[in-house]
């Protein structure tokens, strides 16, 4: 397939920008956009999985140095997400593209519902960490303007089991599944929002590599497309993050809710029409 570099670069920039504004990777926007440009959904998923490694590693590098990421939580949960990602990518390789469109649309709408339900939620620290979480040493602190904030994760067992599911979705659909991971960190393990997001970023890179290796082995990673998408999505994500800090949380969330709803409905409609 010959590629118009400029077009794919521009689309990836927009996907990275919108993804960063929403605090997610660009995959959730990139995959629908690539399919509009007549890239097969399996190739789009494969290329997105590779680009997710770039965006998550780029941002994780900064978050880890700033002591926002909890490395132990990340390294414990990675054991579950990589197994899920390997299983998910295997399913995609064998799946009918129509089902992938439908499933992608449903995941987008589920992410929309989750964000909508939690739009005004405030974090409260876990009162009593369980024995497993204590044994795993899942406590930590992160810097705030007012001083270090301490926290202790809880329900590590449930977190691990659910992370297998998040990895499955990531491998299946070629996205970071950051929304699901953040949700598990927040609601199940009681991590503060900043730690949830940054730790999820660290895990996404390894999860994406497990999925990408399956797509690479099936010849679904197109280097010409990757050469346009990777720099594009990184440039978009970089500028999106810069704009994000100047915007109010409420505007960002509203913007992303609209994007998720439109893309979700559109992918489901294409799945029902039998797009391939």
């Amino acid at each position: 397939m010959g590629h118009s570099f400029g077009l794919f670069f521009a689309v990836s920039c927009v996907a990275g920008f919108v993804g960063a504004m929403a605090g997610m990777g660009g995959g959730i926007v990139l995959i629908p956009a690539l399919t509009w440009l007549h890239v097969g959904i399996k190739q789009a998923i494969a290329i997105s999985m590779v680009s997710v490694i770039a965006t998550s590693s780029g941002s994780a590098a900064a978050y880890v140095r700033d002591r926002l990421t909890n490395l132990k939580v990340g390294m414990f949960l990675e054991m579950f997400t990589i197994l899920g990602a390997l299983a998910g990518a295997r399913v995609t390789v064998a799946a009918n593209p129509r089902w992938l469109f439908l499933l992608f649309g449903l995941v987008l709408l589920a992410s929309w519902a989750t964000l909508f339900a939690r739009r005004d939620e405030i974090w409260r620290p876990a009162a009593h960490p369980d024995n497993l979480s204590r044994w795993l040493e899942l406590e930590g602190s992160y810097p705030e303007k007012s001083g270090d904030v301490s926290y202790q994760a809880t329900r590590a067992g449930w977190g691990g089991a659910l992370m297998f599911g998040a990895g499955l979705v990531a491998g299946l659909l070629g996205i970071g599944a950051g929304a699901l991971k953040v949700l598990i960190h927040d609601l199940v393990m009681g991590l503060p929002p900043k730690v949830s997001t940054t730790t999820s970023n660290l895990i996404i890179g390894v999860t994406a590599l497990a999925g990408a290796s399956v797509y690479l082995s099936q010849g679904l990673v197109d280097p010409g497309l990757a050469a346009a998408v990777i720099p594009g999505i990184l440039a978009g994500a970089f500028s999106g993050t810069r704009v994000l800090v100047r915007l109010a949380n409420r505007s960002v969330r509203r913007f992303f809710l609209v994007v998720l709803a439109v893309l979700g409905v559109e992918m489901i409609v294409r799945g029902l029409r039998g797009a391939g």
Partner: protein
Amino acid sequence: MKISRRDSGRMEALIGSILAVGVVGSVLFLAAGLFWQRRATGAIHLNHALRGTNLFGFWSGCAQAVAGGRWSPELLVNLGIGVLLLTPYVRVAASAVYFAFFERNAKYAGFTAFVLGVLTYSLFLR
């Protein structure tokens, strides 16, 4: 085993550096390949296919081309993709070594070794 803030800081600096070097290195290879393609043909259309292979097979192909001096825009782009794919792998390997030999934390050395083992298996998939 509890780790001190200083030990944890060293670990964070190591991981942060590996990730940053991996992403920047990958983009530099991709940019060099695209620039070369533009200079050679006047357009940035890369049209080379990648047949199904595992990451180690992919790297072995790149290494043979580099050793044989067969430099080309396609090789630079492949190196960019290869460096990017290796970045999380090297990060996990470095974490395993750090936990095992510097912090001597058997629990987390075991966890990271497990992740490294599964990743290594996945990178040999065909």
